[in-house]
């Protein structure tokens, strides 16, 4: 694109695939809904806080995990600072799961999949299951007694359905990479998709609610 063309209104029907992609992405979330300063008035319950709390806890989980990687695998066993960073990671994970489970139950009782929100629910459940897998590989990466016990127990279940042939829980180097790269990447994409869907469709109205007459 040249400087002359910049700022020109887009054509009515994009002709190239890049233009079509831009056009499509620009319509993913309605204008003003990505980070809104207004919400439907029926949003008046503490249950709504837990989705955002889950997201905030995930940020702390990732940040403490990144800090933990700075010192290497054995750092936290031999350094009080490393131990504290590991403690931050552990407790942020505990909070993350606590918030996420409350959020999930809340959305279940709200039947939050109504109104074309099934994919929002489904990505949320997949994020929950993916988080369990990520936390599990974290336990396997600790290189302590818990890792020894959990790995030797988990191998039986995983091998019984053939998963262990490709996902070797007795190989901590493999599990560490799953924990710090593969699963966070996949989980990150799912979480982004989930949040975009939430913003795209807005929060689900109360069960059996009618649209209201609203003054413009």
């Amino acid at each position: 694109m040249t400087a002359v063309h910049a700022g020109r209104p887009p054509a009515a029907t994009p002709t190239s695939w890049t233009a079509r992609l831009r056009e499509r992405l620009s319509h993913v979330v309605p204008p003003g809904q990505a980070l809104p300063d207004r919400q439907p008035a029926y949003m008046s319950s503490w249950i709504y806080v837990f989705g955002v709390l889950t997201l905030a806890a995930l940020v702390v989980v990732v940040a403490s995990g990144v800090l933990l990687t700075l010192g290497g695998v054995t750092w936290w066993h031999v350094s009080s600072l490393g131990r504290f960073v590991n403690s931050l990671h552990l407790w942020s994970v505990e909070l993350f799961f606590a918030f996420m489970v409350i959020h999930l139950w809340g959305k279940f009782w709200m039947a939050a999949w109504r109104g074309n929100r099934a994919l929002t629910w489904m990505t949320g459940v997949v994020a929950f299951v993916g988080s369990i897998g990520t936390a599990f590989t974290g336990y396997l990466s600790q290189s302590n007694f818990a890792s020894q016990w959990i790995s030797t127990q988990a191998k039986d279940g995983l091998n019984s359905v053939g998963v262990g042939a490709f996902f070797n829980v007795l190989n901590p180097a493999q599990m560490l990479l799953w924990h710090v790269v593969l699963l966070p990447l996949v989980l990150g994409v799912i979480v982004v998709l989930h949040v975009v869907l939430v913003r795209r469709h807005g929060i689900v109205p109360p069960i059996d609610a009618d649209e209201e007459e609203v003054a413009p």
Partner: protein
Amino acid sequence: MTTSTEPRRVTRTGRRSTPDSHGFAARPYDLVKEFVVALIVVTLLTVGLAAAFSSPDEKAITMRDWANAAPNDVVATAAGELAGTTTSAGFGPPYNTAADGASLGPLTLQKWAGVTIPLDSAQDLVLTPLGGVTDNSTLTDALATWQSADADQRTQWATDYSDALAQAPDGDPSAVATGDYGPVPVITASFLTFAQTGGLEGALTSSGNFYGGDQTRSLLLLADGAYLEDQARARNLGGDQWGMMNETGNYPGQPWMWLYTFWYQVPPFSTSENADALVWGLMMLLTLGLVLVPFIPGLRSIPRWVPVHRLIWRDYYRDHPRR
């Protein structure tokens, strides 16, 4: 904000369809502010919990720890590996073809996945590590005798010795009844000494590989013994103690795995030899069900029948009584 003027939509079942959330009255609400406040609260909570409770870190059991704490268990495990009677020796895929493994009805997923991590328990866990010991002529002779014997003879020696160990008080090798065990007592005694000196660990994990990042062999060997499970049970981590869900020490562990570990506590899973496959099959089914809740008749209607939603949206329902 738009004003809806469309008539209320009704589904085929007569139930009102869900209106667009943008058609409702709105109020000021700063999502960015909410997230920043949440991030600060969670960060402070995390720092507080970490400072107050720290985190568990029980040291890993080394082969030397095991050999010094439970020497008889190490000898019995080594004899079991030679006899082919340990868990790893008879496991089946992905380690060997000694068994077909678990199955889900007609689905033999374990067998179908194949042997992707080949392991000969006797050779890889006992004989190969000992093959690196060069200053022990008695052991060298014993290994040569073992290698020159046929498979049936080896199995006979090792099985007889394993049985004799099981009969001896506390499994004490020095109290074993006299018998023809071939080179097995020398091999297992040398294995114990090798473990006590700290040489076994490296021989298992980094044999032929400078960077020993794969602990498959040492973990299989450790799990074949009784010591690891004894230590785990002492920390309430046994399979019938809700297992992997727990954490060493007084920590919350992984409570989100409660449903998975729950099934192992109740029949028929708690009494089935095929429990791992059954529990995994059930959990995959339940997970699929959870993902597909919006499409499962009955299940998706539970929130309508149990009026928890009237608590969540109590302000709305107070202002808008059901018509």
